């Protein structure tokens, strides 16, 4: 009878100690980088809308998780440069829903009208360090009427629900065309992930 309480005390202290340890060391993820630009699109004068999608366990501490770049009209060469900064600081309580970046490349034509040129998404790399990424983009093709209309008056089919970019519904039914690639440079900094058994 004498032994039980002390044991209990011991375990609770252990628990407290543990909780103290984990509390001070929570997993953090910094994503710093830029959307450099895009190549391989049929037209220049592009801009890009981007957003970061995470699972429910993730919490944004600082930074903007979506945005839009300027319109770049390259004078020379094919590549449109945006050099749009991305700076995010996340904390997480679980690995699920690792951040992914989804992009929409838009084209602004000479009349100032904007039309969609491509959807793309890419996982934020999970290994720390600098990463040069290339995100291939695609665009729904639409019916031949759409294509005809697009040829003459611009515009084009768009997804009704843009979450399809990163959610995996039955995409195989979608007819798409590959568009250019978007180049990104992301530096990933992990902190305290090793405390939770995630080796980096």
């Amino acid at each position, binding site marked *: 009878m004498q032994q039980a309480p002390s044991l209990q005390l011991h375990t609770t202290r252990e628990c407290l100690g543990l909780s103290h340890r984990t509390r001070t060391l929570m997993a953090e993820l910094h994503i710093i980088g830029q959307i450099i630009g895009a190549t391989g699109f049929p037209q220049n004068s592009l801009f890009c809308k981007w957003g970061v999608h995470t699972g429910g366990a993730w*919490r944004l501490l600082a930074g903007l998780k979506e945005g839009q770049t300027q319109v770049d009209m390259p004078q020379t060469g094919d590549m449109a440069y945006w050099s749009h900064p991305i700076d995010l600081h996340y904390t997480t309580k679980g690995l699920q829903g690792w951040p992914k970046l989804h992009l929409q490349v838009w084209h602004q*034509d000479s009349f*100032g009208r*904007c039309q*969609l040129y491509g959807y793309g998404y890419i996982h934020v790399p999970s290994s720390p360090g600098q990463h040069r990424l290339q995100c291939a983009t695609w665009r729904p093709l639409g*019916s031949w009427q759409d294509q005809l209309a697009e040829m003459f008056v*611009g515009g084009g089919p768009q997804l009704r*629900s*843009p*979450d399809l970019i990163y959610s995996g519904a039955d995409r195989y039914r979608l007819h798409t065309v590959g568009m250019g690639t978007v180049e990104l440079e992301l530096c990933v900094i992990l902190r305290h992930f090793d405390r939770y058994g995630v080796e980096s």
Partner: protein
Amino acid sequence: MSSPSDVREKMRKKRRELQESLGRVRDDKQALVASDWDLSQDNGHTAVEMLAGGQEDPGETLRRSMMAKRMKKKKKLLKEMPVESPPDEEVTAVPEQDRPHDDDDDDVQPVRDLPPRPAMRPGSSQSETTMRQRMTEKLRAAKSKAASLLEQESIIEPASRLQSLRDRETLTRFDRDTDPDLRADEDSSFTARLKFRDVARRATTDKRTEAGLPTAEEAYNFFTFNFDPEPQQQPRRKKRRPGRREAEEEGEGEAGEGDGEDEEEGEEERECEGEEESEARDEDAPLVRDEDEDLFLIDQSAQDFLEVRRAEYVDYSRRLQRERDTLFVPSMRTVPASSKLAENVRPRYLEEEGLYVGERPHVGLTNQNILENRILKQGEGRKWFGDDGRIMALPDPIKESSSRPPLFHLEDELDPALQTAYRKALKSKHVNLYISGMGDPQSDYQLDVDVSGLIFSHHPLFSREHVLAARLAQLYDQHLTRQHKSLTRLLTDKLNGLRNTIHNMLELHRGEALSQVTQQRMAEYKQEVRHTRQLRDVEQDKDRALLKSIIRVWKELKALRDFQRFTNTPFKLFVRREKVEREQDEQECEDDIMAEVEELQAEMEEDYQKKMSEYRRQHEEWKSWKRKQKVLKKKQKKKRQQEEEEEDEESEEELGEEPEKPDPPEKPDSGSLEEQVREKAARIRRKPGEPVLIPELTVSGPVTPNEQCPRAEFARREDVSKRALFIKVLYNDKEVSRTDSRALNMDFRVHFGQIFNLKIVNWPESIKLQVFEGVGSSSTLLVEVCVPVPESSVLTGSAPSEEMEFSSNQRVTFNHEGVGSGVPFSFEADGTSTQTLLTSGKLSCCVSWAVGEDDVPLAPPSSQPGGGMYSGLGQMDAIACIGASSLNDMKKLGKWAAESRLDPNDPNNTSIMQLLSVVSGGDVAVPEYFRLEQLQEEFNFLTDEELQRSRRFRLLRLRSQEVAEFRHFKCVPSMEREISQKVFQDYEKRLKDGEIIDTKEHIDSHRALVAKYLQKVRESVINRSLIAKHHFMLSDVVSEDEVPSIGVLGWNLFKLAEPKRPLKPHRKERKKVTAQNLSDGDIKLLVNIIRGYDIPVRRLHTSKPPVSAKSGRSFTEPFAAPVLSQINQQGSEWPFGQPLIRPFVEVSFQRSVLQTSAAEGPNPCWNEEIVLPFSAPNGDYSSTSLQSVRDEVFINIFDELLSDVVEDERERENTIHTRIARHWLGSIKIPFSTIYLQSRIDGTFKVSTPPVLLGYSKERSLGSEGGYDTIRSLSEGTFLSLFITIEPQLVPGDTVREKFDSQEVERLLIASEVFEKEASRQFPDRPCLSTVIDINGKTVFVTRFIRPLNPPQELLDAFPNSPQETAELVARYVSLVPSLPDSVSFAGVCDLWSTCDQFLTLLAGDEEEHAVLLCNYFLSMGRRAWLIIGSAIPEGPTAYVLTYEQNRYLIWNPSTGQHYGQYDIFCPLQTIGCLINSDNVWFNIQPYAAPVRMSFDVSKPKLWKPFFSRSFPDPGLSSVQPEALVYRRTDKAAAVELQDRIEKVLREKIMDWRPRHPTRWNRYCISTLRQFLPKLELSGGREVAEEHRLELQSLLGEYTISGFPLHLPFSEIRPIIEAVHSTGVHKAEAPNVEFALAVHVHPYPGNVLSVWVYIASLLTAQ
């Protein structure tokens, strides 16, 4: 052919000869051949050196001679015949070998130089010794010949060189090609060669001074050293060449060889090699043979080396033959099965054995045969065949049809998430708009507003008859709807149903005991029955009442028609009777009544039973208590006899309270019950057997034509026909459309039937319909109807038209038959029983979301607005499909339906019941919960709470949310433990304070409340502006230099030609510094104090109290200056015997205090610059933070008082011991924000001096400055010239140019924008204002703020006779409201204007609020007043008030209460931008903006540009101000309490400030001062009663008093402390100093408090 063949023969001979003799001292080409030969033969021979060494001389000579001959021959040859290109061999080597020769023409050495060449092929000298010997012999012979020849032909050499050069040019390519090849071939012998070359090189270097050649060679070797061999290519070329020469021979040879090879099948490579080998041998043989013959034929010409040959041709048959030998052609015939299988194996067919064998891919039979044949030829060919003797093959993998289904017909079934929509390319303008915080920016939304019509239920033009008719129609409508619903019937049915059920149940269980469940159900049913019965009774009652009133109104209408003898309305009422069968009806009725009676009885019985049982229980209790009582009493009696002590206690304990004796409940009276029921039935139901009455309203009645009507009625009808109505559609308070104007009909119905399609980009907030009624062209707003924004499921086509009821409280009267509205009228002739009707009616309209072409609703998604990207899957809402929108919680709905006992039969509930049935039917099962991310919990690192608890994350999050406390955090520590919990303390406290009001800080609870409120407003505004700050315009991001226009350029050019004027210096613009790169200590505040005017001078004290001294303010009185001993001592410094003063200026800012030196006299000149450091709060130098700096610069004028403290007269000669005391004379305070926003402040400022300055008086300047005096006499007070600036110059933050939403008409907003733009273009330095932002953040036109408002009556009553004094008092009152600059409270945001009532509630405001309030007061006092928008010093852009009275314009400073004449030179107002009153805004377009130099006559359009002019008339803007202000009388007691508290605080503070000295308080003086203060207040702080002063003097005669009263508006205690501190009274350090402090708080209405602080220091006079 003969001659060439001869030549060839010769040539060949000669060449062979040469080859032999030279031992391959030959050109490269030759070497090539030789080397190949070498290669094919043995590589082992190395007898080169010997040979080379021996051959040197002869070889050289021979070569020469040969070359010479060659030259000759070539010439000849060229002449003679068109030869096929000379074989390369002959010439190529020449250039290389020629070079040394050229250099040393006559030298013998060249001969020795050459050997390296021959040495190149050491390996080639494999020849047998016999051959060598022969060769040497021959060489020798040739050498002798050549020597002689050389001598002969040395003359030709130059030519030959030329030739050689030419040749070289043509042939270098080949040269280059072959050389490396050669060398590579000889790799094996390379070392030997190298050795040799070394020797040779040594030789050359020895003998030749020039080192150029060998090194070049070396380099050459070096570079070509690693060249890869091309063994394959080499032999082939070789092959070709001999082939060319001896085609036929070789052909045969090959063929022969080929035959041999044929036998070795399948080993083609080896074949090839073998062939080559043999070929090489072949080639070799004839070469040697030829050489043998021609070797010594030196007299060769070019022809000798050339040959002309036929085109090569192998005839067909031979080629076929050869091909047959080399190639294998598999036959096309079927291979017999036996050869495909192993011996003695029968083919086995898997299909026949019943196994499934897939279909093989189709291969043509021929192809298959060929393949099989070919495979069989190969080694292990059989392994390719399966058991069935066929080539093994997998089944055909290609499906017959494509597995990807075509898309075209799948479009409809596509998952909605996958659907694509064709979107037009859109202008980016639309892309940016905000309806879609939700992912889908491009979709366009459309609202359809269908305005179908309008029915007036009352209209001012109604005649009496119309009123009745309308009422009738309304009642009838009610009747119809009721009938349609037929609630009574429903309820009756339900009741019957319930009764039947109960009956059935009872019958079922007849005689048996009812089970528990059944009993409960019975009870429930009974309950239900009772409820339903009550409902039915009510409904029946209503039905009957309605019917009655319909008939009554109809009767009234008929009476009226009769009375007025005309008919206005076509209404007619028929009452139809429906016969009923009397018997049955009576029976039913009776049944019903009986049933009811029965039920009631049962209920009553039940009730009675319940009560009875209750009664019994109580009775039992009572009885038991009684019994106890008795027992107890008995006991007591016994006990009393035995123990008398305990008696009392016990009896009290046991008795307890006596329960009341319950009364038995009354037996219900069933007899009267029936009576009651019958009576009720008679009241609310039709009598049994009576016919059913059904009213029917028709509009078929005739209306009396106009001609037959009396005049009044005729006028009314005329009026009606003139009226027209139209409806404006306002979307988000903006007019978007309006209907056509429709005439008002006689029946007061207007039909519009117009549909407006609104394509919207903004989120719909409100949709309004404004009904306008017009006569002729003018129209008035009748009423405004707000239409709710439809749910996104409400779509055009399916949405029903709604009737919106409206009414308006307009008062309209007519002098004709129209009854008007809002006015009482009566139907009776005698005017009794009047009634008042308001214009009202029903507007039938329908607002719904449009449906696009492809049936896509053009509605925004209904999910929460601004919720980010919406999920496409979320749209598949089962409930939304049914039609009930925003009913998401099915569980709750179901529960509610169960609880409320929805009647399934009620038609109103059909949709809900249907929905519920669908849900409960299991089709759409709603699970208990749903999990978004499975297994999330299991894999979590830690819990939410832990995450929440992290201080670091919290800090980071708060910083990124830009919460004020954390916004400027630059670095957040990386470790959790480095963040202390204290960081959040302030923040948490603030959050907590949101609810709790801290009265301690603010003293006054009201003010605390206000401060809280202000804080809230501020927060919301700041949040808005933070959002707005993130909206960038192009100009924010891109800084673009404006392209100079031609005009500017021209002007600048013109400037160049300007004469230089060195004496007219230009001010250079200082560099502006942006706030980011600043840190503490970088910013300095420069205060330049130039001079002072009219500083009060010391008034001389008398040692005797009664000697009169004059008031400091009494300028008019001559000043008597009795000279005193004390003054005398100092006075010696003053030659003029004037009362002296040594003023100096002290500037204090942020607790750093600096002062000038003391100057002398009342008009001193300091001209000193004071530099004060500035540090921003939290070290944050962003412009918003700088703008919110609340610190003020205090500029105080002191008098330096030197008093001699040397006690001993004898010491006076050699000791100076003076005490410096200083007396405060006045101060100026300038908020830092003003300096920051204006960047510099320059001018002469009025010093605020206390009304009374003990010991000082205002000296009237004497005659010397007479001219100036006249002007100055107008002003009263002390002035100081200052120049203040910040170094370096800071860029003030931009105000937000967010477009605030507005309720103004669009046209007005545009006009105001244009007006302001034009004004700023013409006069950029004159402030112009036409729209301002009110406290709600809406743009409001400025004239709306001006409206006459009553000042507190108290103030008006104070001086009933003197309007001027009243005005001053009012101004004083206004100035007593504390002022709080907006730039401080709304840092970096904008100027917000609050209305006067808000201002008085908040008791804080800017200059504008003060000015508006003062202006409104003046207007209500019947003065002509304007608001001046201008700029003044030191405030900068500000608002003043202008009044006009007695032909004189007065300018009032609202925040001080001062007023100035138009020509007052010291008026702080410097620039006048515009004048505003309630009607108009005038902009100053005069050449001058200073009030002194301008005219205030606003009627002159040349001087003042009005906003509303003829072209743009005033639309009649209503005021935003309240109609009247209500003032709360301030609690006097509270003021007294406040007074005590302030005094206490100040006293403590003064003692705190004097830590090293005791602070003595002179109570006597304090009490005197206390009496004195209220009088000061009454006099408005100006005319101080002389007597009191004298009194003070007399009372405190023995003291030297210096002190003054301070006057402040009360906001909080801090500024008061600040002000007292800045006077520096506490600094008096004389040992015997005493202090006096008195505080007086005078309450004004509306909680405006005026605070007086009298502070004085007393020194005992010696």
